[in-house]
């Protein structure tokens, strides 16, 4: 019978050996994470680090975040705008631990999210480069913005029919509809909701499917709005997807995004018309319509002013001519004491035609005087 020892003796020896080798030391490692289980209330997180050769896992070890280092997960999510979840590759500082009952694992002390950000930036850069390379209609402008078929498509002067892509019962949907439905101008909109998941692994594909539904719809939409609400949402992955970005860039109906983040601009935003939040998209739509109405009101005012000027001008001209006619009216002349002399029912212009004793009629303002000419002599007194 072989010589045996107690389990605890062997495990104690392993423990001692490991302590001897690893106590007081920490290590920076780079590895993919999987089987991530977060216990938010306790601020614990259990996971596994793995290393692959092709698709086969060649190395695997359990790991844990305890409450005192859980803050690093939150910071990572805040800084990189991605969920700390299986599939990520992270760089982190770890300590080797051995527990006589629970075995060997790595305790994560810190995450280097600069690495994660760098990796995300690189991926983003690669996707943008691919979009430019494979789609000649997408152009990078000097300003750093992207010009696409979609954001070059002219917005309607008045927006009335809206296709809204959003998650069901989401803050984004509520915020957008609140502004649109109760607008102070009383504008009426036809808004059709296309409900889908907007974050998570399949989200980009699901959004593409909604865009296809919109394209196939009998309703002719003026614009498409993609909103996602809540500032705390951090998963931008779906909005940085190549296929979704391409679909947006080539889509014929103008797309306005309000995917709810102040700091970050997703690739989807770059291909469309970006607004920070659902509320801002809705306000932009109202402003667009108000601008139209304002211009109409301004034109009406100008028109009204011009018509007034024209009519007043015409009235003045008419008044002026009326006065001139009045001044030359024989009645006006008669009122001033002048008289018209008729002889043989003809106005006497040349007195040579009147002889002595001829019967003449003198027309005054209100009377006609019949008389006989007794004398005609040259007028030498009245010098006008």
């Amino acid at each position, binding site marked *: 019978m072989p010589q045996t020892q107690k389990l605890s003796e062997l495990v104690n020896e392993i423990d001692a050996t490991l302590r001897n080798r690893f106590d007081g030391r920490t290590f920076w490692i780079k590895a993919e994470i999987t089987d991530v289980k977060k216990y938010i209330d306790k601020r614990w997180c259990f996971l596994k680090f793995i290393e692959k050769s092709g698709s086969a896992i060649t190395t695997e070890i359990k790991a844990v975040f305890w409450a005192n280092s859980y803050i690093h997960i939150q910071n990572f999510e805040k800084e990189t705008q991605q969920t700390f979840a299986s599939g990520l590759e992270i760089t982190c500082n770890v300590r080797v631990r051995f527990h006589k009952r629970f075995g060997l694992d790595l305790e994560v002390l810190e995450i280097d999210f600069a690495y994660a950000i760098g990796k995300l930036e690189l991926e983003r850069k690669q996707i943008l480069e691919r979009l430019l390379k494979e789609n000649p209609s997408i152009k990078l402008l000097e300003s750093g913005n992207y010009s696409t078929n979609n954001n070059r498509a002219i917005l309607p002067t008045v927006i009335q029919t809206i296709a809204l892509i959003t998650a069901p019962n989401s803050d984004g949907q509520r915020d957008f509809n609140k502004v649109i439905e109760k607008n102070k101008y009383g504008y009426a909109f036809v808004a059709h909701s296309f409900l889908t998941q907007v974050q998570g692994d399949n989200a980009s594909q699901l959004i593409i499917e909604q865009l296809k539904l919109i394209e196939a719809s009998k309703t002719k939409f003026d614009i498409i709005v993609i909103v996602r609400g809540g500032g705390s949402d951090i998963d931008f992955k779906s909005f940085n997807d190549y296929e979704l970005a391409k679909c947006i860039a080539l889509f014929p109906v103008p797309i306005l995004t309000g995917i709810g983040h102040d700091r970050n601009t997703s690739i989807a935003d770059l291909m469309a018309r970006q607004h920070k939040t659902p509320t801002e998209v809705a306000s932009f739509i109202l402003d667009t319509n108000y601008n139209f109405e304002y211009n109409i009101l301004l034109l*009406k005012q100008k*028109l*009204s002013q011009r*018509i007034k000027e024209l*009519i007043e001008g*015409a*009235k003045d*001209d*008419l008044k002026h*001519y*009326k006065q*001139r*006619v009045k001044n*030359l*009216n*024989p009645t006006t002349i008669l009122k001033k004491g002048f008289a*018209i002399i008729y002889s043989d029912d*003809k*106005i006497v*212009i040349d007195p040579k035609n009147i002889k002595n004793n001829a019967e003449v009629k003198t027309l005054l303002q209100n009377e006609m005087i019949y008389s006989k000419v007794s004398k005609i002599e040259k007028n030498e007194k009245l010098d006008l």
Partner: protein
Amino acid sequence: MKNLTYKKAFSDLEKLVDQIEDDEIQLDTLADKVKQANELIKFCETNLRSIEKDVEVAMGEGKKGRKKG
């Protein structure tokens, strides 16, 4: 004057006034021209009032203008 436009009436009036103001005008034709001129003035005034009223209605400024729906 049925088919007379404001523009035509006013232009006729201008010509008439020029003729009336001509020193060479004969007194017996003057009265006739003045009568014609006054008719044109009356036509223009009526026409202008009607245009003004029509415009007010069209611009929604008239007393019986369309109320906002």
